[in-house]
């Protein structure tokens, strides 16, 4: 083991065939000139092509939260029952009896807008992995969807593909999709929102964190082989790259739920085996972000040899291997000398595992291609030195005017004086109508714990072996947030809480998926800041801390700009199965009571 990962004799040198680092190439990687200067200062030299790729992946919005972090810090994250707050693959709360629940929501908006079926399917795959890497067995999925109006054929195609993608993936892995929410509005026409939430169950003592530690511990790539899928969004269609641009174009990721199911079982077996110290999904920015984040959390160095990564295609460069987003892969840190047990467990499940690097004492993040060093960053600065922005925030005058408009002055249509007409109109609008078309395609019963499935308020999932259950729901009315971001942010939390309470549950914590437009537009950043503030206020009032979430900016297209949509995914606890309450009329003669003002 020591030979291949010996200390580097020299620093990184450009590989033959690597393109020249030019301002244009830097721009294509999505780095601003300031960010590039920051990188050069950090390294004390010009980066190699591979290093540029690594940094562009880690410093992009998706991985770095560079525009959102200061605002997110204002959210309440603590409560006695929170075992793991934001910063890990998923948040974890205690639910009593030594049991804990891991849960998180994630968006796959842009992939779903291009290839709805695979985009949605791989979104489900990613969030499942985030949960089972915590040592939790996934027990429920939820999905929060926003689409344009259904009378457009393209929207129907997108919507049908997304629902099928979510269903096929979750059904095959065998995780019930028990609840969700959906809204149709022209604001989402060019940029649908596809958010998926996963909830998993674990024993408190099984909680696993993605923290690399233990000098000499081997690092393994586990699961599917690595191909050229989804090599990052920074477009490489440009001519100056000599290799056929076909091979350079970002390629859509294809999900394989069958492999995911095997990976799920193998990962849980690995975690319970005691042979590993950390595990993390290779999600966005693949090997790069998983390895760099694990190293940063553990404050240790790592070395990785890309030639040792199991590959699906030939001739892949270190750059490609580091940035590939091939699905159904994990990065594992094993205990030194126990790696063969890891390989054996993976083989039992017909999957591969290969040692690709190790944890080192030297405080560097180093990538080699065989003997050659192709990237090397000092310490954990790669993650911690990421730029942070405080964008300007200003409310749009237009929206303020809209809000201040007196709704009573809006003229009624003649038909509206007929309540029967109005009721029919409302009930037949897709946003309000039954969602059966969707959830009939989801196996919402597998694992035989679904006490209340989709079709009511919150879903209720029994905790087998106890008299308790979880109540789960996603919610957000983007139109409210658009008109009044602070109140809208509060309303999203409160709506989810009402649904949870109506099913018999006490709200305990939330995860959130903040879907907004470009943070560089002051009116969008205003919405973001205010909606988060509103959300935080409601969470404090309800004692439902935020244990994690996801930010999705840039949800804009030439056709439309989405309503600001901070989706809330709430977990509540039903203390006794006797408290479970259904949203249906039950018996003749029961009284109907209207509560509230």
């Amino acid at each position, binding site marked *: 083991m020591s030979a291949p990962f010996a200390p580097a004799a020299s620093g990184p040198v450009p590989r033959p065939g690597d393109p020249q680092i030019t301002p244009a190439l830097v721009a294509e990687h999505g780095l601003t000139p300031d960010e590039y200067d920051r990188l050069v200062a950090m390294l004390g030299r010009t980066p190699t092509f591979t290093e540029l790729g690594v940094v562009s992946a880690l410093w992009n919005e998706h991985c770095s939260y560079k525009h959102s972090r200061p605002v997110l810090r204002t959210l309440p994250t603590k409560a006695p029952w929170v075992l793991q707050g934001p910063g890990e693959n998923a948040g974890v709360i205690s639910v009593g009896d030594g049991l804990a629940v891991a849960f998180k929501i994630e968006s796959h908006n842009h992939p779903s807008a291009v290839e709805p079926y695979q985009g949605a399917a791989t979104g489900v795959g990613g969030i499942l992995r985030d949960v089972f890497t915590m040592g939790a067995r996934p027990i429920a999925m939820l999905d929060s969807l926003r689409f344009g109006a259904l009378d457009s054929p393209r929207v129907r195609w997108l919507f049908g593909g997304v629902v*099928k993608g979510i*269903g*096929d993936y979750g*059904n*095959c*892995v*065998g995780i019930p999709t028990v609840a969700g929410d959906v809204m149709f509005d022209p604001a989402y026409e060019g940029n649908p929102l596809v958010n998926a939430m996963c909830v998993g169950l674990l024993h408190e003592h099984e909680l696993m964190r993605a923290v690399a530690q233990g000098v000499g511990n081997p690092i393994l790539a586990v699961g599917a082989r690595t191909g050229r899928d989804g090599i990052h969004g920074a477009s490489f269609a440009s001519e100056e790259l000599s290799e056929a641009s076909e091979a350079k174009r970002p390629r859509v990721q294809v999900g*394989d*739920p*069958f*492999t995911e*199911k*095997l990976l799920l079982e193998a990962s849980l077996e690995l975690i319970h085996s005691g042979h590993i110290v950390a595990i993390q999904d290779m999600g966005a920015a693949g090997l790069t972000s998983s390895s760099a984040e694990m190293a940063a959390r553990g404050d240790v160095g790592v070395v990785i040899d890309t030639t040792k990564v199991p590959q699906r295609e030939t001739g892949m460069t270190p750059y490609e291997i580091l940035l590939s987003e091939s699905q159904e892969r994990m990065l594992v840190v094993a205990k030194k000398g126990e790696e063969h047990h890891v390989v054996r467990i993976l083989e039992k*499940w*017909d999957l591969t595992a290969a040692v690709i690097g190790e944890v080192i004492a030297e405080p560097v993040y180093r990538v080699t291609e065989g003997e050659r060093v192709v990237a090397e960053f000092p310490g954990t600065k790669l993650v911690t030195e990421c730029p942070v922005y405080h964008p300007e925030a200003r409310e749009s005058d237009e929206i303020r005017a809209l809000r201040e408009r007196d709704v009573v002055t809006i003229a009624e249509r003649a038909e509206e004086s007929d309540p029967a007409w109005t009721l029919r109109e409302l009930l037949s609008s897709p946003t309000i109508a039954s969602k059966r078309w969707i*959830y*009939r*395609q*989801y*196996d*919402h*019963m*597998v*694992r*035989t*714990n*679904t*006490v209340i499935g989709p079709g009511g308020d919150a879903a209720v999932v*029994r905790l*087998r072996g106890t008299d308790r259950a979880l109540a789960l729901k996603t919610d957000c009315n983007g139109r409210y947030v658009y008109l009044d971001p602070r109140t809208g942010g509060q309303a999203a939390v409160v709506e989810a809480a009402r649904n949870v309470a109506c099913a018999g549950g006490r709200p305990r914590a939330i995860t959130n998926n903040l879907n907004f437009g470009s943070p560089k537009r002051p009116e969008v950043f205003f919405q973001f800041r205010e909606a988060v503030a509103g959300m935080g206020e409601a969470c404090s009032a309800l004692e439902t801390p935020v244990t994690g979430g996801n930010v999705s900016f840039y949800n804009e297209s030439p056709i439309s700009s989405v309503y600001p949509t901070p989706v809330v995914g709430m977990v509540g606890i039903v203390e006794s*199965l006797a408290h479970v309450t259904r949203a249906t009329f039950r018996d003749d003669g029961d009284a109907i009571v209207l509560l509230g003002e």
Partner: protein
Amino acid sequence: MKFGIVTFPGSNCDYDAYHAVVDQLGETAEYLWHKDHDLRGSDVVILPGGFSYGDYLRAGAIARFSPIMQEVVAHADRGGAVLAICNGFQIACEAGLLPGALMRNANLKFVCEQRHLRVENVNTAFTAEYEEGQVIRIPVAHGEGRYVADDDALDRLDGEGRVVFRYCNAAGGTDATSNPNQSMRAIAGIVGDAGNVLGMMPHPERAVDALLGSADGLPLFESILARVGA
């Protein structure tokens, strides 16, 4: 009585079958690994639902070559009871334990919901605890559940009383929506020619606890206990 529940790569209702047997019936159950050649003394083998091998190529096509299937076929040939549910039914057809095939639902969509079934024959090891013509509620959850066979095979199944469950509406009749996948002759479940192998698309193991919506699957398991245990 001991139930052996086969876990294929991609099975996902093995756990549900296990809990139905152990928690609800109070019997013993053990998971059987697809790579093994050992039924571990099981009296009844359950081929559970799920997506063995991802349902790639055709549902059940690859799983039927698993090593354990040789033992399952031998067990069935000896007259041992086999309960093949959903993906298990697909595997059993592919393995030749049951006639016919299961194809994609006619509307090409996965369907998950409670359905009504009519019990067509109570003289089987799986249905003795039901009443003839009884309408029961059992959930379905499948994308490839459309039962297909040629006319001769269908006539034989009907003639020999081997169609055990048919899709129907709440009143036991048929209407435009009572057949969720357009199975031929509305077939939801059949037994093999010796009567000891039951294949069905609906999930009786999901219908053993009224808390989850229906306990109409319990008599099926109780029938097995009464007849196979006797």
